[in-house]
């Protein structure tokens, strides 16, 4: 069963066409990464997937519950980490207490159990991004959308969060669409990687055999991941 389907989607901004009759599907439990040069429409693709943008033609089908992690954490500064994570549940009609209970568990799962009362400005960049991730996962989404969430993090933090995310996805089996500038991150995390050309049409696909149950962060430096990243680089070069 597909967690996300793009059927002949066409979209653009003004005169600039981004996607023309784009077809795309994401299987249940699958992690799909999208890579491509800046401006090729990666973030637009996520917004179409989340229904924040409507296609000019064609259709997008997805589950009802979505989790979205933006490029920056986008936490509300007046809310504690706990209340930020509880927000989507509150908005969906859960009581504050119930939402906070689930949020506490989500923060614990992502290693921030001790930081529930802290406000975003009291958290490090990595902790803020983890909180943002917890906010996306707390709704138990049918589809998780990640928009270059690790771009602004230092290498050590990035690797730790990548590893934790891989474990979380292994446990939850949440189908995930991740947009990334980093070919290594894509090769480490995804089952399948699509390369978008500068004109926004998918040009190539790389299948990666990722065993998420056993995906230690050291694997990111492995020959297997490096080779995949090198293949992706060649595909991107060819498409640009």
């Amino acid at each position, binding site marked *: 069963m597909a967690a996300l389907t793009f059927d002949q989607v066409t979209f653009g901004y003004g005169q600039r066409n981004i996607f023309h009759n784009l077809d795309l599907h994401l299987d249940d439990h699958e992690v799909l990464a999208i890579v491509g040069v800046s401006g090729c429409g990666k973030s637009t693709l996520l917004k179409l997937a*989340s229904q924040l943008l409507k296609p000019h033609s064609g259709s997008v089908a997805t589950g009802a519950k979505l989790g*979205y992690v933006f*490029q920056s954490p*986008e936490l509300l500064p007046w809310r504690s980490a706990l209340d930020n994570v509880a*927000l989507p549940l509150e*908005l969906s009609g859960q009581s504050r207490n119930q939402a906070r209970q689930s949020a506490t568990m989500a923060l614990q799962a992502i290693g921030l159990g001790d930081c529930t009362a802290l406000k975003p400005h*009291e958290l490090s960049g990595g902790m803020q991004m983890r909180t943002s991730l917890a906010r996306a996962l707390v709704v138990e989404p049918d589809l998780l959308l990640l928009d270059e969430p690790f771009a602004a993090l230092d290498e050590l933090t990035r690797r730790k969060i990548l590893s934790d995310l891989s474990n979380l996805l292994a446990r939850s089996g949440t189908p995930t669409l991740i947009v990334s500038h980093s070919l290594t991150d894509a090769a480490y995390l995804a089952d399948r990687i699509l390369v978008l050309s500068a004109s926004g049409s998918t040009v190539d696909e790389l299948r990666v055999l990722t065993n998420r149950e056993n995906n230690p962060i050291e694997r990111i430096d492995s020959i297997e991941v490096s080779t995949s990243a090198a293949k992706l680089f060649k595909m991107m070069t060819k498409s640009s």
Partner: protein
Amino acid sequence: MKYNVKRIVGPGVVFSSFIGAWYALAYGIDNNFSPISGKALVLPPPHRMFEGVNEAVRSDVIAASWITFTTASLGLIIAAIVAWSLALVMAQAKWLESSFWPFLVALQAVPIVALVPLIIQIVGVNNKARVLVVVLIAFFPLVSTAVDGLKRVPTAQEDLFRLYGADKVETFLKLRIPNAVSFVMSGVRVSAGLSVVGAVVADFFFARGDLGLGRLITEYFQSTQPGPMILASLLAALLGGLFFSLSYLAQAKLNARWSPQISLRRNDR
């Protein structure tokens, strides 16, 4: 150590220069002192600045300060209630915002003196008229900052609320209004100072009713009593400072709760 010296020397030099200029002006103005009594007629020198201030003057000035304080406070509160209500309406839609803006800008640009006849016709020459002047003067910063705060929400945060199915009311209550707090408080800080200016200025136009500091300053000026005039002016300035400081403290307190990422530090360097 070097830092402390700078902090003392700088203000010391400026203060000394100010006092020196004051003396130069007091003794430099033609016919500043009465040839009979020796009293200053326009500007007394600093060491005689409160010349002519007696018990009667002191009680008059204190009573007038209270009147100016209540006029400014009441005007500021009314201005805030009306401005924030209007901002909530304006933030609902772009067309509503653009419909109101020309009138608000015109209101801000029209000199109060041009509105005096209208104010007299509507409320008469009394305390209400003075409060209305304060409202008119304090209104614009309050409404413009509130509209800004309600509208300038990060796009991604708006997307987040849409994504999780928030309706318009929820988005207002949980996103737009909290986001507006720091903007609103900047407006309050500006309008708080303006409200005292408004209360004093209103006294010049509307002389009837209780005597405020503006009216008292005019009376002392007309009866050549520079000492009492300086005292009344100083109290008006102190009142302005008090309003500003209170709003600054309120801003710091509210920002700590609603916008903790915004620093109110004054010594950034």
